Protein backbone atom coordinates (compact mmCIF):
# COMPACT_ATOMS: atom_id res chain seq x y z
CA UNK A 1 0.00 0.00 0.00
CA UNK A 2 1.43 3.36 -1.00
CA UNK A 3 1.91 5.95 1.73
CA UNK A 4 -0.33 8.79 0.58
CA UNK A 5 0.77 12.12 2.08
CA UNK A 6 -1.44 13.56 4.78
CA UNK A 7 -2.11 16.72 2.77
CA UNK A 8 -3.68 14.64 -0.01
CA UNK A 9 -5.76 12.59 2.42
CA UNK A 10 -7.00 15.83 3.98
CA UNK A 11 -7.80 17.24 0.54
CA UNK A 12 -9.88 14.19 -0.32
CA UNK A 13 -11.87 14.48 2.91
CA UNK A 14 -12.34 18.22 2.45
CA UNK A 15 -13.53 17.94 -1.14
CA UNK A 16 -15.99 15.13 -0.50
CA UNK A 17 -17.43 17.16 2.33
CA UNK A 18 -18.25 19.96 -0.07
CA UNK A 19 -19.47 17.64 -2.80
CA UNK A 20 -22.16 16.34 -0.44
CA UNK A 21 -23.15 19.82 0.74
CA UNK A 22 -25.68 22.16 -0.93
CA UNK A 23 -24.17 24.28 -3.68
CA UNK A 24 -25.35 27.36 -5.53
CA UNK A 25 -27.70 25.51 -7.89
CA UNK A 26 -28.03 22.01 -6.47
CA UNK A 27 -28.82 20.34 -3.17
CA UNK A 28 -26.29 18.05 -1.58
CA UNK A 29 -28.33 15.05 -2.75
CA UNK A 30 -28.37 16.37 -6.31
CA UNK A 31 -24.63 17.00 -6.22
CA UNK A 32 -24.02 13.40 -5.15
CA UNK A 33 -26.40 12.22 -7.88
CA UNK A 34 -24.32 14.16 -10.40
CA UNK A 35 -21.21 12.43 -9.06
CA UNK A 36 -22.96 9.06 -9.37
CA UNK A 37 -24.09 9.75 -12.91
CA UNK A 38 -20.62 10.93 -13.87
CA UNK A 39 -19.26 7.61 -12.63
CA UNK A 40 -21.63 5.83 -15.00
CA UNK A 41 -24.22 4.74 -12.48
CA UNK A 42 -27.93 4.78 -13.24
CA UNK A 43 -29.49 7.74 -11.47
CA UNK A 44 -33.23 8.32 -11.17
CA UNK A 45 -33.21 11.62 -9.30
CA UNK A 46 -31.79 13.72 -12.13
CA UNK A 47 -33.23 14.46 -15.55
CA UNK A 48 -31.87 12.20 -18.25
CA UNK A 49 -30.25 15.24 -19.87
CA UNK A 50 -28.33 16.09 -16.70
CA UNK A 51 -27.29 12.49 -16.12
CA UNK A 52 -26.10 12.31 -19.69
CA UNK A 53 -24.26 15.61 -19.35
CA UNK A 54 -22.42 14.41 -16.25
CA UNK A 55 -21.39 11.20 -17.96
CA UNK A 56 -20.28 12.92 -21.17
CA UNK A 57 -18.14 15.47 -19.34
CA UNK A 58 -16.60 12.64 -17.32
CA UNK A 59 -15.99 10.19 -20.17
CA UNK A 60 -15.81 12.17 -23.44
CA UNK A 61 -14.83 15.78 -22.69
CA UNK A 62 -13.10 16.32 -26.04
CA UNK A 63 -16.29 15.37 -27.89
CA UNK A 64 -18.42 18.09 -26.27
CA UNK A 65 -19.73 20.82 -28.53
CA UNK A 66 -21.45 24.16 -28.18
CA UNK A 67 -24.39 22.75 -30.10
CA UNK A 68 -24.77 20.08 -27.45
CA UNK A 69 -24.59 22.66 -24.66
CA UNK A 70 -27.24 24.73 -26.41
CA UNK A 71 -29.60 21.74 -26.33
CA UNK A 72 -29.17 21.62 -22.56
CA UNK A 73 -29.91 25.32 -22.37
CA UNK A 74 -33.03 24.81 -24.49
CA UNK A 75 -34.19 22.26 -21.93
CA UNK A 76 -33.91 24.83 -19.16
CA UNK A 77 -30.45 24.26 -17.67
CA UNK A 78 -29.05 27.60 -16.57
CA UNK A 79 -25.43 28.50 -17.21
CA UNK A 80 -24.81 28.72 -13.46
CA UNK A 81 -26.14 25.20 -12.97
CA UNK A 82 -24.13 23.90 -15.91
CA UNK A 83 -20.90 25.43 -14.60
CA UNK A 84 -21.52 23.95 -11.15
CA UNK A 85 -22.15 20.57 -12.78
CA UNK A 86 -18.92 20.87 -14.79
CA UNK A 87 -16.96 21.80 -11.71
CA UNK A 88 -18.37 18.88 -9.74
CA UNK A 89 -17.74 16.28 -12.43
CA UNK A 90 -14.20 17.51 -12.96
CA UNK A 91 -13.45 17.32 -9.23
CA UNK A 92 -14.87 13.80 -8.99
CA UNK A 93 -12.71 12.74 -11.91
CA UNK A 94 -9.61 14.08 -10.16
CA UNK A 95 -10.41 12.40 -6.85
CA UNK A 96 -11.38 9.08 -8.41
CA UNK A 97 -8.34 9.10 -10.69
CA UNK A 98 -6.04 9.55 -7.74
CA UNK A 99 -7.66 6.72 -5.80
CA UNK A 100 -7.38 4.43 -8.83
CA UNK A 101 -3.78 5.38 -9.45
CA UNK A 102 -2.61 4.60 -5.93
CA UNK A 103 -4.50 1.32 -5.94
CA UNK A 104 -7.41 2.12 -3.65
CA UNK A 105 -11.05 1.31 -4.29
CA UNK A 106 -13.32 4.04 -5.56
CA UNK A 107 -14.76 5.97 -2.65
CA UNK A 108 -18.36 5.17 -1.82
CA UNK A 109 -20.66 8.17 -2.02
CA UNK A 110 -21.25 9.75 1.40
CA UNK A 111 -24.62 10.81 2.72
CA UNK A 112 -25.79 14.24 1.62
CA UNK A 113 -25.92 17.25 3.90
CA UNK A 114 -29.38 18.78 3.88
CA UNK A 115 -30.32 22.29 3.02
CA UNK A 116 -31.30 24.38 0.06
CA UNK A 117 -29.00 25.68 -2.66
CA UNK A 118 -27.62 29.18 -2.09
CA UNK A 119 -27.65 31.02 -5.43
CA UNK A 120 -24.81 33.43 -6.02
CA UNK A 121 -25.14 36.54 -8.15
CA UNK A 122 -22.11 37.05 -10.36
CA UNK A 123 -21.62 40.56 -11.72
CA UNK A 124 -19.82 41.25 -14.96
CA UNK A 125 -19.71 37.77 -16.46
CA UNK A 126 -19.95 37.68 -20.26
CA UNK A 127 -19.16 35.26 -23.04
CA UNK A 128 -15.53 36.00 -23.90
CA UNK A 129 -13.71 33.21 -25.66
CA UNK A 130 -15.62 30.26 -24.19
CA UNK A 131 -19.08 28.79 -24.15
CA UNK A 132 -20.19 30.09 -20.78
CA UNK A 133 -20.02 33.57 -19.25
CA UNK A 134 -16.81 34.34 -17.42
CA UNK A 135 -15.50 37.35 -15.53
CA UNK A 136 -12.82 38.40 -17.95
CA UNK A 137 -11.56 36.30 -20.85
CA UNK A 138 -12.18 32.56 -20.60
CA UNK A 139 -9.12 30.75 -19.33
CA UNK A 140 -8.44 28.19 -16.58
CA UNK A 141 -8.81 30.65 -13.71
CA UNK A 142 -12.08 32.12 -14.98
CA UNK A 143 -14.03 29.20 -16.49
CA UNK A 144 -15.84 28.59 -13.19
CA UNK A 145 -16.75 32.27 -12.65
CA UNK A 146 -20.43 31.39 -12.35
CA UNK A 147 -19.74 28.85 -9.58
CA UNK A 148 -17.29 30.42 -7.12
CA UNK A 149 -17.38 27.47 -4.73
CA UNK A 150 -16.38 25.09 -7.53
CA UNK A 151 -13.61 27.52 -8.51
CA UNK A 152 -12.34 27.38 -4.93
CA UNK A 153 -12.46 23.59 -5.06
CA UNK A 154 -10.48 23.58 -8.30
CA UNK A 155 -7.82 25.81 -6.77
CA UNK A 156 -7.69 23.63 -3.65
CA UNK A 157 -7.17 20.49 -5.72
CA UNK A 158 -4.56 22.17 -7.91
CA UNK A 159 -2.60 23.43 -4.92
CA UNK A 160 -2.37 19.99 -3.35
CA UNK A 161 -2.14 17.67 -6.36
CA UNK A 162 -0.17 19.88 -8.74
CA UNK A 163 0.94 23.46 -7.98
CA UNK A 164 -0.81 26.57 -6.70
CA UNK A 165 -2.04 28.68 -9.63
CA UNK A 166 -0.65 31.90 -8.22
CA UNK A 167 2.56 32.90 -6.48
CA UNK A 168 6.23 32.79 -7.33
CA UNK A 169 7.84 30.72 -4.60
CA UNK A 170 7.33 27.25 -3.21
CA UNK A 171 4.85 24.88 -4.78
CA UNK A 172 3.46 27.39 -7.28
CA UNK A 173 3.17 27.61 -11.02
CA UNK A 174 5.41 30.64 -10.96
CA UNK A 175 8.32 28.59 -9.60
CA UNK A 176 10.08 26.98 -12.57
CA UNK A 177 12.65 25.38 -10.28
CA UNK A 178 10.23 23.59 -7.97
CA UNK A 179 10.88 20.01 -6.95
CA UNK A 180 7.90 18.30 -5.33
CA UNK A 181 8.28 14.87 -3.80
CA UNK A 182 11.34 14.32 -5.92
CA UNK A 183 9.69 15.29 -9.21
CA UNK A 184 11.31 18.23 -10.97
CA UNK A 185 9.22 20.93 -12.62
CA UNK A 186 9.98 19.42 -16.04
CA UNK A 187 8.84 15.99 -14.89
CA UNK A 188 5.67 17.51 -13.42
CA UNK A 189 4.92 19.35 -16.67
CA UNK A 190 5.69 16.23 -18.70
CA UNK A 191 2.98 14.37 -16.82
CA UNK A 192 0.60 17.30 -17.26
CA UNK A 193 1.30 17.45 -20.98
CA UNK A 194 0.95 13.70 -21.45
CA UNK A 195 -2.36 13.66 -19.58
CA UNK A 196 -3.72 16.49 -21.69
CA UNK A 197 -2.54 14.92 -24.93
CA UNK A 198 -4.16 11.58 -24.14
CA UNK A 199 -7.36 13.45 -23.27
CA UNK A 200 -7.18 15.36 -26.55
CA UNK A 201 -7.09 18.64 -24.63
CA UNK A 202 -4.84 21.16 -26.30
CA UNK A 203 -5.03 24.23 -24.08
Amino acid at each position, binding site marked *: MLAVPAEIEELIERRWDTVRSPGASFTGADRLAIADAARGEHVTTLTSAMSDAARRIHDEPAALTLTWLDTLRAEGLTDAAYVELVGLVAQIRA*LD*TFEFGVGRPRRALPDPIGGDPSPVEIVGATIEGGWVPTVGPAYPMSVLSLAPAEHDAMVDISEVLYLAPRGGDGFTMGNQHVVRDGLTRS*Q*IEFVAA*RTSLVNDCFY
Partner: protein
Amino acid sequence: MLRASADANDETVDMRGVGHVTVESGVPGDAELTALTDATILRDPDELPVARARAIAELGEAATIRTIAVAANFEMMNRLLDATGVGPTTSMRPIGDLIDVALPSRFG
Protein backbone atom coordinates in the same frame (compact mmCIF):
# COMPACT_ATOMS: atom_id res chain seq x y z
CA MET B 1 4.75 24.93 -19.38
CA LEU B 2 7.12 22.02 -20.15
CA ARG B 3 9.02 24.15 -22.59
CA ALA B 4 9.13 27.04 -20.11
CA SER B 5 10.42 24.86 -17.29
CA ALA B 6 13.04 23.25 -19.51
CA ASP B 7 14.26 26.68 -20.65
CA ALA B 8 14.37 27.98 -17.07
CA ASN B 9 16.44 25.00 -15.94
CA ASP B 10 18.76 24.87 -18.97
CA GLU B 11 17.38 21.50 -19.95
CA THR B 12 17.12 20.16 -23.46
CA VAL B 13 13.72 18.63 -24.00
CA ASP B 14 12.37 17.11 -27.18
CA MET B 15 8.68 17.91 -26.91
CA ARG B 16 7.87 15.17 -29.39
CA GLY B 17 8.57 12.74 -26.58
CA VAL B 18 5.29 13.79 -24.96
CA GLY B 19 3.28 12.28 -27.76
CA HIS B 20 5.63 9.67 -29.15
CA VAL B 21 6.85 7.00 -26.74
CA THR B 22 9.71 6.07 -29.08
CA VAL B 23 11.20 9.55 -28.82
CA GLU B 24 13.46 10.25 -25.85
CA SER B 25 12.24 13.56 -24.52
CA GLY B 26 15.26 14.24 -22.32
CA VAL B 27 13.03 14.38 -19.21
CA PRO B 28 14.42 11.93 -16.64
CA GLY B 29 12.17 8.90 -16.23
CA ASP B 30 10.00 9.87 -19.19
CA ALA B 31 9.24 6.27 -20.09
CA GLU B 32 8.09 5.47 -16.57
CA LEU B 33 6.15 8.74 -16.29
CA THR B 34 4.38 8.01 -19.57
CA ALA B 35 3.50 4.44 -18.66
CA LEU B 36 2.15 5.39 -15.23
CA THR B 37 0.24 8.41 -16.52
CA ASP B 38 -1.38 6.41 -19.29
CA ALA B 39 -2.29 3.46 -17.06
CA THR B 40 -3.79 5.80 -14.48
CA ILE B 41 -5.90 8.03 -16.70
CA LEU B 42 -6.94 5.26 -19.06
CA ARG B 43 -7.99 3.21 -16.03
CA ASP B 44 -6.00 0.16 -17.09
CA PRO B 45 -6.19 -2.29 -14.18
CA ASP B 46 -3.77 -4.73 -15.77
CA GLU B 47 -1.06 -2.27 -16.73
CA LEU B 48 -1.28 -0.03 -13.67
CA PRO B 49 0.50 -2.30 -11.14
CA VAL B 50 3.32 -2.88 -13.61
CA ALA B 51 3.66 0.81 -14.42
CA ARG B 52 3.52 1.76 -10.75
CA ALA B 53 6.24 -0.75 -9.84
CA ARG B 54 8.46 0.52 -12.65
CA ALA B 55 7.92 4.11 -11.55
CA ILE B 56 8.75 3.29 -7.94
CA ALA B 57 11.93 1.52 -9.02
CA GLU B 58 13.01 4.45 -11.19
CA LEU B 59 11.67 7.48 -9.32
CA GLY B 60 10.85 6.36 -5.78
CA GLU B 61 7.51 6.01 -4.05
CA ALA B 62 6.92 9.68 -3.24
CA ALA B 63 7.55 10.74 -6.83
CA THR B 64 5.28 7.95 -8.06
CA ILE B 65 2.44 9.19 -5.88
CA ARG B 66 3.11 12.74 -7.05
CA THR B 67 2.95 11.59 -10.69
CA ILE B 68 -0.47 10.10 -10.05
CA ALA B 69 -1.54 13.29 -8.28
CA VAL B 70 -0.49 15.51 -11.18
CA ALA B 71 -2.25 13.28 -13.69
CA ALA B 72 -5.39 13.40 -11.55
CA ASN B 73 -5.25 17.19 -11.43
CA PHE B 74 -5.08 17.45 -15.18
CA GLU B 75 -7.93 15.00 -15.58
CA MET B 76 -9.86 17.74 -13.79
CA MET B 77 -8.41 20.65 -15.73
CA ASN B 78 -8.90 19.03 -19.13
CA ARG B 79 -12.61 18.53 -18.38
CA LEU B 80 -13.09 22.05 -17.09
CA LEU B 81 -11.67 23.53 -20.27
CA ASP B 82 -13.27 21.16 -22.76
CA ALA B 83 -16.70 21.43 -21.15
CA THR B 84 -16.58 25.23 -21.24
CA GLY B 85 -15.20 25.50 -24.75
CA VAL B 86 -11.78 26.91 -23.90
CA GLY B 87 -9.23 25.86 -26.49
CA PRO B 88 -5.64 26.88 -27.21
CA THR B 89 -5.03 30.56 -27.83
CA THR B 90 -3.55 31.63 -31.15
CA SER B 91 -0.12 32.00 -29.54
CA MET B 92 -0.32 28.45 -28.17
CA ARG B 93 -1.11 26.77 -31.46
CA PRO B 94 2.48 26.28 -32.66
CA ILE B 95 2.84 23.83 -29.76
CA GLY B 96 1.18 21.29 -32.02
CA ASP B 97 4.18 21.47 -34.32
CA LEU B 98 6.58 21.16 -31.39
CA ILE B 99 5.00 17.98 -30.10
CA ASP B 100 4.40 16.72 -33.65
CA VAL B 101 0.67 16.29 -33.09
CA ALA B 102 -1.95 17.86 -35.34
CA LEU B 103 -4.49 20.05 -33.61
CA PRO B 104 -8.02 18.63 -33.93
CA SER B 105 -10.19 20.32 -36.53
CA ARG B 106 -12.49 21.75 -33.87
CA PHE B 107 -9.78 24.34 -33.12
CA GLY B 108 -9.84 25.64 -36.70
